[in-house]
């Protein structure tokens, strides 16, 4: 329910607008003078102000900046009996949401009000992202910031949520963030992994059974749906839910009631559902493999998580965050990382997304042993190979770029060798022993190679 202030000296307008607002389930307060309206706006908190222009004690247009400067900055809809293009322009420039004539139909007024409230809700969600509890979620990129806004919106709602995204993008963390920031945070967060459940067990695991309900049911079992009472159920890999259970689950979502296997009556569970998938449920629904009505229910709120390769701005933030976490678990100071290490992380495509990044960091920290700085050499070999291949692929074709003849294999190998040695020396800060360790080339062989290419190090 929103709170609406109506400032108009015309009693009939005040009454008509109040009735319209009340019919939409909102609370209306009226003021017949500008002074009274401004006082009310300062003392109370309103979402929207309907503001007349010509009021006996002042001009509504001049009051817009005063109202917008208030702590809760209400949306302002100008409503006037005297349509004036200049006045309309001035109103919008001062920050009014819209400018309506009193001759507007109820439908037009309702639509403008609904849009203003919808916009305001979204705006509040953005403001609230700063106070969200976000364990493990990092958002520097615009895509992830927009996901955070959706998380804030979802946390304030009771509607089912469908989270989509590739494997490893953090769908479960998003579900957990919604739960932790919702009024159900004190209840359980119950995971149902639809892909893990064998079809023969799924119904019993979800809805429970009574003793003796079927062969092997030696004891009664409370299903996960019941265990989620008062909390949130996170249904992972929802695309894997068997078709017979899709029908049952849809009904549970609609009624909050279900019947454990073998029980004569239904029982209820008050839970909020968050589902996730990396499958294309629209396509599955089109092929008749996923119920369209269930998909419609699940997607009351949809959150799509972009793959890591589409939000490179987040890679270093995530790296810093997880290195801190790893260090805390190992009870030591977080490791620094070299610019080359950072560059390599940013150039890799991360097909396994954030999960792959975390694994790579865990392995890099383990490989660094007692060192203080992470270097490219500490990363898993598949990532280094990818980076090496990409960097070579990015270089222009020597034959076409310089007009030189295409190099022989021996020449190309020599060039690559020299380049690698220069990089090893740079990363090692010129220290030959360190370069030998990093490159896993013995010191005598390293001396030999450096001499061959006319390069010099220290030590």
């Amino acid at each position: 329910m929103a709170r609406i202030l109506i400032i108009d000296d015309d009693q009939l307008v005040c009454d008509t607008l109040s009735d319209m607002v009340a019919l939409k389930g909102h609370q209306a307060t009226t003021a017949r003078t500008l002074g009274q309206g401004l006082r009310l706006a300062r003392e109370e908190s309103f979402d929207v102000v309907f503001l007349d222009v010509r009021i006996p004690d002042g001009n509504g247009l001049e009051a817009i900046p005063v109202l917008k400067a208030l702590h809760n900055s209400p949306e302002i809809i100008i409503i006037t009996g005297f349509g004036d293009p200049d006045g309309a322009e001035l109103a919008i420039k001062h920050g009014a949401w819209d400018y309506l004539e009193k001759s507007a139909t109820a439908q037009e007024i309702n639509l403008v009000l609904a849009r203003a409230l919808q916009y305001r809700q979204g705006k509040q969600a953005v403001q609230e992202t700063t106070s969200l509890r976000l364990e493990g979620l990092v958002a520097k990129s615009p895509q992830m910031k927009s996901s955070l806004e959706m998380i804030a919106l979802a946390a304030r709602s009771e509607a089912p949520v469908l989270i989509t995204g590739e494997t490893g993008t953090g769908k479960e963390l998003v579900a957990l963030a919604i739960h932790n920031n919702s009024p159900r945070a004190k209840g359980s967060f119950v995971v149902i992994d639809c892909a893990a459940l064998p079809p023969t067990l799924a119904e019993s695991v979800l809805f429970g059974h009574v003793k003796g309900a079927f062969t092997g049911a030696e004891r009664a079992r409370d299903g996960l749906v019941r265990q989620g009472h008062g909390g949130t159920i996170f249904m992972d890999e929802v695309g894997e839910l068997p078709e017979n259970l899709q029908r049952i689950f849809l009904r549970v979502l609609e009624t909050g009631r279900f019947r454990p296997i073998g029980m004569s009556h239904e029982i209820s569970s008050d839970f909020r559902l968050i589902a996730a998938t990396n499958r294309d449920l629209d396509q599955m629904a089109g092929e008749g493999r996923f119920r369209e009505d269930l998909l419609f229910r699940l997607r009351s709120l949809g959150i799509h998580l972009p793959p890591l390769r589409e939000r490179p701005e987040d890679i270093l933030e995530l790296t810093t965050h997880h290195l801190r976490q790893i260090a805390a678990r190992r009870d030591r100071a977080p490791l620094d990382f070299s610019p080359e290490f950072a560059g390599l992380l940013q150039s890799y495509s991360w097909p396994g997304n954030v999960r792959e990044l975390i694994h790579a960091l865990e392995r890099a920290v383990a490989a660094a042993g007692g060192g203080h700085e992470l270097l490219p050499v500490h990363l898993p070999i598949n990532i280094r190979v990818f980076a090496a291949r990409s960097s070579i692929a990015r270089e222009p074709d020597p034959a076409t770029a310089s007009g030189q003849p295409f190099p022989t294999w021996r020449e190309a190998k020599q060039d690559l060798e020299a380049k690698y040695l220069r990089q090893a020396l740079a990363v090692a800060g010129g220290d030959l022993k360190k370069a030998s360790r990093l490159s896993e080339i013995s010191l005598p062989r390293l001396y030999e190679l450096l001499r061959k290419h006319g390069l010099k190090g220290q030590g």
Partner: protein
Amino acid sequence: MLRANLIVYNKLPDLLDQEIEAGIIGQGLGGGLKVCRSMQELRVVIEEDAGRSSMAVLVPSDREDLEGLIAMRLGDWQARIILVLRQKDPEALALAHSLRPRFLTFADGNLAEVAIVARNLARVHQFHTYH
């Protein structure tokens, strides 16, 4: 053959982990299996596991043991957890869900389910092996 690292945590010297192991082998799930008899051992295995994706069957001996596992912040570890509870009281159950298990069952139930679920998890998710 499906392969996955499997870690079993069970402090009590009973036959439960052997039953779980036998079921897993029966499901044709290969890889490596490590049994941890103490929280300390589990910590070491988790550190060794760093950067891999594993599956863990945790059988806390009592409420205190369950709380100990929760305090280890296993959520940061990337393993898929199957939880076998010896307690059935609602408080223990509510606590157990904070470990976000992919499957939760009870020690006096049908442990063959654990092996079936482990097999399904190995089929769906990519796991690394010790070998």
